[in-house]
């Protein structure tokens, strides 16, 4: 992104208290962003929301299976990795499980920082690892009433996560 992507010099001493939630409930993005902003030190907030698509009308719902206990821990780890790499001031990472209808949100991440470069980079990093290392699995429920297959992992998602190792 626009600011350098090197680790911040004070990375070791910096800790943030992220908002991490794994739940079947709808996500209130507005409440989360309100909690992260408005402090006078935050200059930039980047959010990502991932939605369930209807896949051209074929999909009735996505079923999200997860590994309770590990899911929260792994997300917390991803957020702390991001906080070590960029000078973020706050972060949220929320992932739903269970049946999710087209148009509904599946995942929400948010990062705040003094400047936009760190917030964009950290949010993008969080999503790449939410996709590839948080223990969630998607299965399709089809409009014709059948339960479709498990969604296959994408090479492009692996590649997206791998690029951060080169920084």
């Amino acid at each position, binding site marked *: 992104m626009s600011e350098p992507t090197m680790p911040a010099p004070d990375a070791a001493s910096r800790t943030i208290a992220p908002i991490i939630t794994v739940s079947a409930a709808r996500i209130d993005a507005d409440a989360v962003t309100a909690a992260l902003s408005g402090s006078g030190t935050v200059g930039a907030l980047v959010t990502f929301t*991932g939605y369930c698509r209807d896949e051209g009308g074929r999909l009735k719902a996505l079923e*999200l*299976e*997860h*590994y309770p*206990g*590990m899911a929260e*821990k*792994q997300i917390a780890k991803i957020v702390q990795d991001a906080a070590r790499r960029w000078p973020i001031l706050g972060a949220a990472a929320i*992932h739903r499980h269970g049946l999710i209808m087209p148009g509904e949100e*599946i*995942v929400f991440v948010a990062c705040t920082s003094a400047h936009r470069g760190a917030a964009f980079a950290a949010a993008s990093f969080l*999503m790449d690892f*939410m*996709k*590839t*290392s*948080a*223990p*969630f*699995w*998607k*299965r399709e429920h089809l409009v014709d009433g059948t339960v479709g297959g*498990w*969604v*296959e*992992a994408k090479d492009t*998602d692996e590649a997206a996560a791998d690029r951060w190792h080169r920084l």
Partner: protein
Amino acid sequence: MKLAYFAWVRERIGIAEEEVSPPAEVTTVADLLLWLKGRGETFDAALQAPEIIRVAIDHEHVDHAEPIAGAREIAIFPPMTGG
């Protein structure tokens, strides 16, 4: 130790979790996957491509060379597709 299975690994095996006591020569994750694969048709179907199977010990991702000694819970699952 407790084993937990997720997604299509769970579906193919037909159970979500179980207690197992593998023989002493099963020392790594790779050994464990091979031993499980030999436990019957459902396990063979779930683990036919062990190289793509992901494993976590006590909620931490590990690679297949990881020793399993001392593990309380080992989870076995396909590549993740969240987000």
